């Protein structure tokens, strides 16, 4: 067992170290892909990541709902997908790097996604 003062010291030391890797004073309109986002977005990210595979892209084109069924998406997530709500997907934790793959299969180019992003501010 650690005594209380040692535990406090260790906590302070941890917080000081954390300063090197955790951006903390970012403006609200700058995001990070971190614990919160990655946790929130895992299902969506798995889904869009699958589009690396040609068979998954074919399934998406043929039957989008069947494609979504594979990833245990919530109703809200399915709705965001169907609506091509790029801001919503981003806020729900989808990484831009897999969003680009989704942009490919949906035929929505990055500049259009960008326009939506800008207008969200």
């Amino acid at each position, binding site marked *: 067992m650690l005594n209380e003062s040692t535990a406090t010291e260790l906590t302070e030391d941890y917080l000081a170290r954390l300063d090197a*890797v955790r951006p903390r004073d970012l403006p609200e309109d700058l995001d990070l892909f971190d614990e919160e986002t990655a946790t929130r977005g895992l299902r969506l990210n798995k889904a869009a*990541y699958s589009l690396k595979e040609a068979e998954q892209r074919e399934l998406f084109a043929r039957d989008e709902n069947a494609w979504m069924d594979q990833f245990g998406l919530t109703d809200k997530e399915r709705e965001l997908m169907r609506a091509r709500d790029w801001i919503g997907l981003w806020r729900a934790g989808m990484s831009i790097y897999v969003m680009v793959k989704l942009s490919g299969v949906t035929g929505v180019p990055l500049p259009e996604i*960008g326009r939506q992003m800008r207008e969200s501010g």
Partner: protein
Amino acid sequence: MARVLGGIGASHAPSMEHVYDAGEETRRNEEWEPLFGPFQEVSEWLGELRPDRLVVIYNDHMDEFFLNAYPTFALGVADEYPIADEGFGARPFPPLPGDSRMGWHIARSLVADEFDPTICQELEVDHGVISPLPMVDFSEGDGQWRIPVVPLAVNVILHPLPTPRRCYKLGQALRRAILSYPEDLGVVVVGTGGLSHQLTGPRFGRVTPDWDQEFMRLLAEDPESLCDYKHEDLIKLGGTESVEVVNWLAMRGALPREAKPIVKAYYAHKIMGYGLEAFAAAQ
């Protein structure tokens, strides 16, 4: 023993692939000459320098690595690296030639030096490697890559990220690895990514040319000063995705302190601050 002949910092972006793939005329038109002209200079410089290997420090964009197991550093130890399908079908390039023996040597040397990369016997490379690489190392005449590569991937996507200082030190450890390689080979170290860009949120598309050019100046003249920047600083200065510049910093760490830029170009265009900076290391 192997030698470090020089280094190249270069942006990477799908847009560069589209321009390259559209052919010579597009590459040299008014819109793209400011970027592809300098790339041609770097290509000619490399043609004279004739390095035997390229070590390419880059970041993957969820094309090889995914969130199930995301490596902080990952090193290729393969004899070839296929081109990843990023969701649109893979670009029609042959696999990049590798050098497993040098890869394993670097792995041992880095780990002995207390850097512990994920060691990859199979690795598909995405635009982090192959958007800038054809401009400096692809013979369109015979459709072949010329110089074997050793890829070294850095996590710049999933926070917590390795610090800029850690990446610079990784480059220094890479230098020790290269210099201790028993074959007499000339190596050029490439760092890809950046410069300023923001791909998410209301600031989508923002570029910051003043900071980009200051970064390139500091990289040449005072790289240690860049180690004092935190990710938070880089994000505020150049955008969320601009933290990729740590790959340039790692490249710079592999060069001698006195290395000088011999090609330096910057072009802010649309949603990217494109940079290119090639360094010669005196032998």
